[in-house]
């Protein structure tokens, strides 16, 4: 089994705050790895470390066999890594299609504008935003902006997709739609690392799960193992009953 | 030895001038710190301060320093007016908008000022005695100006750290959205900050008027110096501006002893760009 992404002892500090402490894991190709933990546990920081927004001080990150620890975000993108942001970052004054074209143009496949426009239309169809493609991105509502984030990342046709809470702020029918979309993405062979708070979904969708608490990796395993892990229950789930219900879901 | 004598003659003068530069820059940097707006109307306001002193001294025949307090008050009100008319609507817009908005205020003042006052030089011919220290002469007007600057700096410090509106200003500077959630009326605080920044500019102009001849365009040079000082002391750090002003004043005192005076702007602006690149938060600012 080849790892697409492999972290070894990744640590990150902001001033006096130790945001990440020696995080290590392997993500095999084609899998979905769920990343969970309480607020402030360092999940988004881990994403930022992986894709070069805030490179780690210690440890190394291997992506597709290359050491990318010190790479800039755009170098990661060009190697085939794409991500969505927890707080949506639409390019407001560009149209929805142009937003998605940016993803296609500057990803690892390096498409021309014409090809990018075709890819954008396909992807917008896929995420259900085709009717909005001529609208300015700034005029979308939150759920649509989340889909746009996803579409932009997908248009890059990435090897690895980092999803940062794509479900947050969505209502239950929107969540169902988004989950279907994520599963379809996996079917296309894209490897996914996802941060998610909606437990039902993480437990159902992930092949494996990692739990972070105060920047420490406190558990790793299959959804069933995680739901039964005493440390996880204490740190995160708090309520053993909740854990039980989770186990049922899983 | 000759250089040393030159230095003795020019350095104290430069330092005293530095106080007033610092005062002007304090106004600019206060506004920047609170609302992230570069006030391009800063220069003309300094010039208006100069003309106010001219009015007090030459038209009313009063001691020019009697004008400082009324000028400060008028400056405050004028700043609040500018904020309400030109700045408030663009406070959350991209930088270009607030830059152009304050620049249009600059154009309006300069245009009206040129029409009313022409661009020929004015002079406040006031002598406040002098102090002889060895071979160095310190002019009374400059000593008084430095003293007034210290008073205003102290006052500003007290206001920002010891009074309720001052604390509100610091809160808004720190995080406007959070301050609003805490119930701080941010619009009023922003207007007050802009008023204070304008007040400091006007007072600095009022003091400079007793040093050199001036016209309505004279503020421009001090505006540029205020940028340099603001960056030296850390944009958004009013107290740092005083130190920045002193550094600039010292440079202006030291450089002429070794190089031609015309090198001063080359060095000043070179330094300015260099500091922006290396320490954008200023020599005393926290490194991000």
């Amino acid at each position, binding site marked *: 089994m080849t790892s697409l992404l492999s972290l070894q002892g990744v640590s990150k500090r902001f001033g006096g705050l130790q945001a990440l402490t020696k995080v290590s894991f392997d993500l095999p190709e084609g899998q979905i790895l769920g990343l969970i933990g309480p607020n402030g546990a360092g999940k988004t920081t881990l994403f930022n470390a992986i894709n070069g927004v805030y490179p780690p001080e210690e440890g190394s990150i291997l992506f597709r066999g290359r050491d990318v620890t010190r790479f*800039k975000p755009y170098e990661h993108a060009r190697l085939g890594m794409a991500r969505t942001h927890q707080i949506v970052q639409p390019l407001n004054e560009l149209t929805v299609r142009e937003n998605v074209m940016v993803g296609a143009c500057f990803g690892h496949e390096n498409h021309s504008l014409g090809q990018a426009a075709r890819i954008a239309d396909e992807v917008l169809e896929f995420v259900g935003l085709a009717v909005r493609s001529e609208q300015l991105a700034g005029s979308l509502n939150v759920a649509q902006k989340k889909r746009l984030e996803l579409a932009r990342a997908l248009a890059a046709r990435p090897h690895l997709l980092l999803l940062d809470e794509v479900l947050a702020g969505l209502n239950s029918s929107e969540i169902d739609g988004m989950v279907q979309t994520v599963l379809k993405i996996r079917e296309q062979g894209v490897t996914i690392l996802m941060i998610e708070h909606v437990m039902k979904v993480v437990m159902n969708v992930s092949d494996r799960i990692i739990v972070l608490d105060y920047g420490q990796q406190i558990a790793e395993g299959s959804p069933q193992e995680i739901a039964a892990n005493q440390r996880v229950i204490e740190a995160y789930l708090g309520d053993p009953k909740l854990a039980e219900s989770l186990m049922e879901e899983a | 030895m000759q250089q040393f004598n030159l230095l003795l003659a020019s350095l104290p003068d430069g330092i005293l001038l530095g106080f007033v530069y610092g005062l002007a820059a304090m106004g600019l940097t206060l506004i920047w710190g609170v609302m*992230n707006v570069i006030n391009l109307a800063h220069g003309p306001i300094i010039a208006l301060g100069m003309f106010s002193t001219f009015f007090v001294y030459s038209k009313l025949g009063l001691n020019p320093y009697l004008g400082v307090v009324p000028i400060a008050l008028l400056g405050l009100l004028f700043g609040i007016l500018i904020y309400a008319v030109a700045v408030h609507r*663009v406070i959350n817009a991209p930088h270009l908008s607030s830059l152009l908005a304050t620049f249009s205020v600059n154009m309006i003042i300069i*245009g009206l000022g040129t029409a009313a006052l022409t661009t020929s030089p004015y002079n406040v011919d006031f002598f406040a005695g002098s102090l002889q220290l060895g071979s160095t002469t310190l002019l009374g007007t400059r000593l008084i100006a430095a003293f007034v600057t210290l008073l205003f700096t102290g006052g500003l410090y007290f206001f920002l750290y010891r009074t309720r509106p001052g604390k509100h200003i610091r809160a808004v500077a720190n995080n406007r959205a959070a301050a609003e959630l805490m119930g701080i009326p941010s619009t009023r605080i922003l207007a007050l900050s802009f008023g204070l920044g304008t007040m400091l500019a006007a007072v600095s102009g009022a003091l400079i008027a007793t040093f050199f001849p001036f016209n309505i365009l004279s503020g421009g040079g001090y505006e540029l110096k205020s940028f340099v000082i603001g960056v030296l002391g850390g944009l958004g750090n009013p107290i740092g501006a005083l130190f920045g002003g002193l550094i600039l004043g010292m440079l202006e005192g030291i450089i002429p002893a070794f190089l031609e005076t015309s090198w001063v702007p080359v060095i000043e602006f070179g330094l300015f760009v260099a500091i922006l690149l290396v320490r954008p938060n200023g020599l005393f600012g926290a490194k991000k």
Partner: protein
Amino acid sequence: MKLWNQYRGLIAPVLVVALLAVWPMLTGKPANRESAFTILKAIALASSLNILLGYTGYVSFGHIVFYGFGGYVGIFLLSGMGWPLWASILAGGLASGLLAFLLGSAILRLRGGYFALATIGVNEAMRAFINKFDLFGGPTGITLNFSVYKAYGGAAQALQTSFYIGAALALLALAISYLVRTSKFGLGLLAIRENEDAAEVMGIAAPWAKTWAYVLSAIVPGMIGVLFFFKNGNVEPGDAFPLHASIELLVMVMLGGQGTVLGPILGAFAYQGMRGYLVTSPVFKDIQLSVSGALLLLIVLFIPAGAIGWLRQRVPLLRRVLA
């Protein structure tokens, strides 16, 4: 048909410049040539600035530094080294491009107001330095010997030639602006303008893209500088690096609509037209600066997208034509 689709946005700009170029000949008044040259120069400079300001979102308050620096280099080569006009113009453009490349690598790391301040600093430092630089004549600058114009058929003919070169440079600026706007590189710049961090995450090498946008926005101003000072007969620090001219350019771009190809053209016309009217009007002559200021303020406060941007927002159909 494909060609038509690709370049139709260029039609209006090319028409405008062509009309300006033939206007003095049609009316037969030499004074019109001067007004037309002023507008062409404004179009060239504003369109160049627009690449950085409108597409990339970086506010340069000292863009005129490229005009002055290129102008100085070109005039020095023309007058001191005996280079022909065309070569001097090219050299001026290249010199400014190179300056932008070196500067850009450093100051484009700064964002927002810090970048704007740095560009003011660069302009002032350059002015102060040239003022001390003996090779370029120090404070008195360089004055062209009248005999220089002989090679171009005398002063009158040289003025005529300069006018057409000015039109060509305006076209060049518009072509660069259009090609950038409709290219993949341009899409990257727009993404940087909207959100630089997100753009980097999507794979745009922002430092590289910004530097090249800066270089592209500096070349034509350098060439225009050489041409203008050639026509003028001399160059001195005050004329080469006027800070207020940088701001006038910002106003033109803002008036017409930043980030569009047509905007700077419209802005150049509107601004120069307004100025021309105010300076000669008996009512406003004395306070023309204040009236301009008040108008600028109204535009900034109420139509910040500029004329073209406003039209594009109101009439979506026009988006296809108004590039």
